C-alpha cells in the first residue's frame, strides 16, 4: 500500500500537466493562443457530455446513447426553424424529444430491468435512425438566421474566453451543485455505491434512475445546441463517430469508477482536459482518424484496466446479468 494516497484525479491532473508541458515544449504549434482556444472549444462539448455521463456513471449506469441525444434533438430544432417554425416551438419540440428519450431510457432501465449498456446501445441506434428517417433531409442541418438570437451559447467569446467553454463552466457548476448540495445528488451517490442498500434505506431507486437518464438526455441536447451554434450546423452523422468513446474516456480517466458511487464534477473536468490535450496533440501530429481511434482505444483499455484494479467490482452488490 502507498503511504501517500494519490487520488486518481490528482494523478490524472499531474499527467495532464506533464503532457501539456511536454507538448508545449516539443510540439510546434501546440502552445499558441489560437490552438489553445481551439483546444478549449473542442473540449467544451466533450466536457458537457462528460458531465451527463458522469451523472449516470455515478449512479452505476452508462449512457451510450448520449451522442444520439446530442445530435437528434438539436438537429430537430435546427431543421424545424429551417422549415419556418417559430424558435420557441422548435425549442419546445427538441426539449420534448430529449425528455421523452430520457424517460424511455430510464423506464427501460429502471422498470423493465434491462441493463443500461444494452438499453442505451439500442435506444441510441433507434434515435439516430429516427432522425435519419423522419427528421433530417440531409446529413448536415444548417443553422438558420432565425436562430441567431440563440447563437450566444456557442459563438464568440466573453472576456476572451470562447462561449462554449463558459457553457461548460456553467454546466459544471450546475451539475456540481446538483450532485453535492441536493438530496437527490446524495441519493445518486448512495445508489451507485450499493443499490440494494439504498433501496432498503428508503431511496426511491427507480424514479432516480429515470431522473438520471432524463438529465443525461437534456444535458446532451444542450451540448448539441452549443455544438450547433459554435460550428453553425449540426452534423447528424456524428452518431457514427467514436465520440462516445471519448466521453467514456473522460469519465473513466477522470476517476469516476464505472462501478459507481465515486467521483464528481472535478474528475470530469480533469479528464476532459487530459483527453482534449491528447486529441489536440494527435491532430497536430497529423495522425489519421483511424490511428487516432487506435490510440484512443488502447488508452481507454489501459484506463479500464487501471479502473478495475483501483475500483474493483463489488461482488456483493453486483447483480446477475450485470455485464
Amino acid at each position, binding site marked *: 500500500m502507498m503511504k501517500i494516497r494519490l487520488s486518481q484525479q490528482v494523478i490524472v491532473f499531474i499527467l495532464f500537466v506533464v503532457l501539456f508541458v511536454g507538448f508545449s515544449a516539443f510540439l510546434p504549434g501546440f502552445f499558441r493562443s489560437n490552438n489553445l482556444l481551439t483546444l478549449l472549444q473542442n473540449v467544451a462539448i466533450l466536457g458537457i457530455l462528460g458531465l451527463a455521463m458522469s451523472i449516470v456513471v455515478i449512479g452505476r449506469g*452508462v449512457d451510450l446513447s448520449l451522442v444520439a441525444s446530442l445530435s437528434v434533438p438539436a438537429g430537430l430544432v435546427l431543421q424545424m426553424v429551417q422549415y419556418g417554425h417559430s424558435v420557441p416551438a422548435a425549442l419546445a419540440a427538441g426539449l420534448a424529444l430529449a425528455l421523452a428519450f430520457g424517460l424511455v431510457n430510464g423506464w*427501460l432501465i429502471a422498470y*423493465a*430491468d*434491462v*441493463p443500461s*449498456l*444494452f*438499453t442505451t*446501445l*439500442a*435506444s441510441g*441506434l*433507434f434515435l*439516430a*435512425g*429516427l*432522425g*435519419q*428517417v423522419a427528421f433530417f433531409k440531409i446529413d448536415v442541418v444548417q443553422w438558420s438566421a432565425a436562430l441567431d438570437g440563440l447563437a450566444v451559447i456557442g459563438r464568440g467569446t466573453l472576456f476572451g474566453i470562447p462561449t462554449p467553454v463558459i457553457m461548460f463552466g456553467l454546466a459544471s457548476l450546475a451539475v456540481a451543485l446538483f450532485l453535492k448540495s441536493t438530496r437527490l445528488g446524495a441519493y445518486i451517490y448512495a445508489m451507485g455505491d450499493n443499490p440494494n442498500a439504498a433501496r432498503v434505506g428508503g431511496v426511491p431507486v427507480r424514479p432516480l434512475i429515470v431522473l438520471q437518464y432524463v438529465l443525461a438526455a437534456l444535458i446532451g441536447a444542450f451540448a448539441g445546441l452549443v455544438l450547433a451554434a459554435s460550428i453553425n450546423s449540426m452534423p447528424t452523422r456524428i452518431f457514427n463517430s*467514436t465520440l462516445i*468513446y471519448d466521453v*467514456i474516456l473522460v469519465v473513466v480517466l477522470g476517476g469516476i469508477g*464505472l462501478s459507481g458511487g465515486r467521483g464528481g464534477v472535478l474528475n470530469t473536468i480533469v479528464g476532459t482536459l487530459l483527453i482534449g490535450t491528447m486529441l489536440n496533440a494527435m491532430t497536430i501530429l497529423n495522425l*489519421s*482518424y*483511424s*490511428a*487516432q*481511434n*487506435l490510440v*484512443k*482505444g*488502447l488508452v*481507454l*483499455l489501459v484506463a*479500464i*484496466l487501471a479502473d*478495475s484494479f483501483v475500483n474493483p*467490482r463489488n*461482488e456483493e452488490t453486483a447483480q*446477475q*446479468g*450485470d*455485464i
Partner: protein
Amino acid sequence: MSDTLLKLRYRYWPDHLLGEILSKRWTETAIPVFVLIVVALVFSRAIPGFLAPASLGDTARQFGEIGFVTFGMALVILVGGIDLSVGSMFALTNFCALFCLNILNWPVPLVIVATLVAGALLGAVNGILIGYLRLRAFITTLITLIIYRALYDILILEHSNQIAAAFPDTPLWNFMGGGDVFGVPSDALLYAALAIFGHIFLTRLRPGWHISAIGGSRRSAYNSGIPVRSVIARCYVASGVLTAIGALFFAARLGTVGGDIGTGLEVTVLTAAILGGISLGGGKGSVVKAMVGTLIVLLITNGLTTLSAPGGVTRMVLATILVLAAVIDIRWLKNRHRIISKVYVSPTYHGMPALPSTAADSGTPFAQNDRLRRATAIGVGRIEAPEDVILDRNDYLYAGSRQGDIIRFFPPDYERMEVYAHIGGSPLGMAFDRKDNLYVCVGGMGLYRITPDRHVEKATDETNRSLTSVTDDSRLRLADDLDIADDGRIFFSEATVRYEMHEWPVDGLEARGNGRIICYDPATKTTHTALKGLKFPNGICIAKNGQSLFFAETWGCTVKRYWFAGPKKGQVETVLDNLPGYPDNINLASDGNYWLAMVGMRCPALDLAWRMPGFRRRMAKRLPVDEWLFPNINTGCVIKFDDEGRVLDSLWDLGGVNHPMITSMREHRGHLYLGGILNNRIGRYALPDADPTFVQYDVRWGKQH
C-alpha cells in the same frame, strides 16, 4: 342444471394443461419459432417470391455466414458475457483471408488455418481481458471493437487496391463462395454440421455444461471447482474462431474489403441471439434458439431491404426488436415461476353428498367419542412424522421419520429406539414381504426395500409414461402406501403426479384425479400403472380373499375395491362412500375386518368450495398459500369396516389432544398403534375385545419359526 353444466365443463375442459405446458422448457423456444412463422408469413405476403427457392438459397448462404457469428455470440452470452467486437473481428478476419490468398498467394487450406488462428487470437485478447483480468465484457469488447476497426481501416488503406486487383481461381475457394450440394449452399452444410455438434456439446458434454453453469451462477460454478476464468476466456476464443469461419465464407463469396464490412454486425447478431431467447446475463440458451433468432433477423433485414426501406428504418426496427426482446426475456425470466404458480393450480368440480352426522348422539357408527385419548404415547419428542407404523413378528415396532430414517422401537415397553436404516426422502407406507424384507414407499424417491440385514435397495422409481400426459409422469413423485399380494406383486399408490409431497393440501384444493395405483412385480422387476385418475389414492390393503385390494381415495372420501385377479379382474367397485372424513391407510383388524385411519374430517366450508372451482381458482391466484382453505386435520379418528362396506365402529380423539391427524394404524397383540405424519409420537391404544395373539405378519404370511 347449472351445476351439471359446471360439472361437465370441469370434467372435460383440460384446465391443468396450461400450467403444465408453461412448465415445459420448450415453450421458451416455441415463442421465437412462432415469431419466425409470423415474420415469414408477413413478408411472403408483402413481397412476391420472398420464399421462392432461389431467394431462399441466397438467404441460406447469408444465414450461414451470420449464423456462425451468432453461434459465437450465443456462446459468449451463455457464459454470462457479451462480445460486441464481432463486427470488427469479422472485418479483420475477412481481410486476413483475402490478404493471405490474394497477396501472399498461400494455398487455400493454409489460408483457412491462418484466418482461423487470426480469429482465435483476436478472441483471445477479449478472453484474457474478460476471463483472466475480469474486466466488464460489455465495455471491454466495445473498446476492442474500435481498436480492431481502427486496425482494419489502417490495413485496408494500404492493401485494398492490391486485394481488389487479384482474382484467385481455386476450386475449393469457389466452392466455399458459391458452391452447393443438391442446392444447399456450402456454408449452410458446415453450419448444419456445426449446429448438431453445438447442440450435443451444450447439452451432453461436460465443457458445455460448465459454460451454462458459469452463466447461471459464476460464484457457484467457481465453488464447485469449475475453472471459471479459463472457460470464459475460451468462450471468447471460440467466438473469434466462429466469427472467422463466417468471414471466410464471406470472403470467398464477395472477395472485397470495403470500409463498412461488419459495421453494425454486432447489433444484428446480438438481436438474433436475444430474439431467439438466449438470456442476457447467461445460463440459458441453446443452439436452436440461436438458429431461430438468426433466421428471424435475417428475414426481417432482407425483407426490409427488398422493400427498399432506408437504412435508418432497418436500424430502428432492429433496435426496437432488440429492446423488446430483451424486455420480454428479462420480465419472463423474472416472473416465470410466478406466472406458472398462478396458472398451475387448476381446481375442478368436486361435488359430494351431504355430510353424514358424526354427533355423539347421532346413533351412527361415526358417533364421536374420546376413546383414543386414552392411548399412551411412544417416543414422544424423539420421533418426527411417523406416517406409517408396522410391527414385525418379533414385536419390533418400525416407523418412518421426517429425516428419512426408519426408526425401530424395542419391545416390550418400546422405550428404547434405534435408527434401523436410513433411506432418505420421506418414508411413508410400509409392508413386510414373505421373506422379511421391509418395503417402504418413500415420498420423492419411489419404492424401496430394506433387507433383513438392513441393506437399503431401490425397488423401483419409475413406471410407464402415459402417452397423453404433458408432464413426464414416468417418475414417482409421491409413492404413498403399499401392500403385497400373495404372489409377491406389490401394489402401491402414488397420491399425485402433479405436486410434490409437501404440497399435498394444494392437490386437495385442486380435487382433480391426479393419483394412480402402480404395480411392481419383484419377479420380473417391472412396473406398470394399474389404475389412474384417482383423487389422492392413499391407503392400500389386500383384501382377505387375496384377489382384490382396498384403496382409499383421500379427497374422494371413499374406499374402493380393485380386483387384480380372479373373475372380476380389472374391475373397481365402491366400498365406502361419502365418509365424514378423509381416509388414509387401511390395515387388517384381528376380527377379520379392516381399520381405516382418517387423516382429517370434512367440514362444510371445503365441501362447498369443492363445488365452486372458480372460487378456488381465485383463491389460488390472489392469496398467499398459507391463507388457502386447508382440510381440517385437528381431529384424530380411526374407523373399522367390513368386506361389505359396513362401518362398524369409530375411535376418536376429538380435540386432537394426543393424536390428531392419524395417518396410519396397525393392530398387534391386542393393541392399536397409531401413526401421524405431523405427530411427534406413536400412539398405543389397548383394544378391549381384540385377539391378544393377533400378529399381522403371521396372518399374512403364516407363522414361521
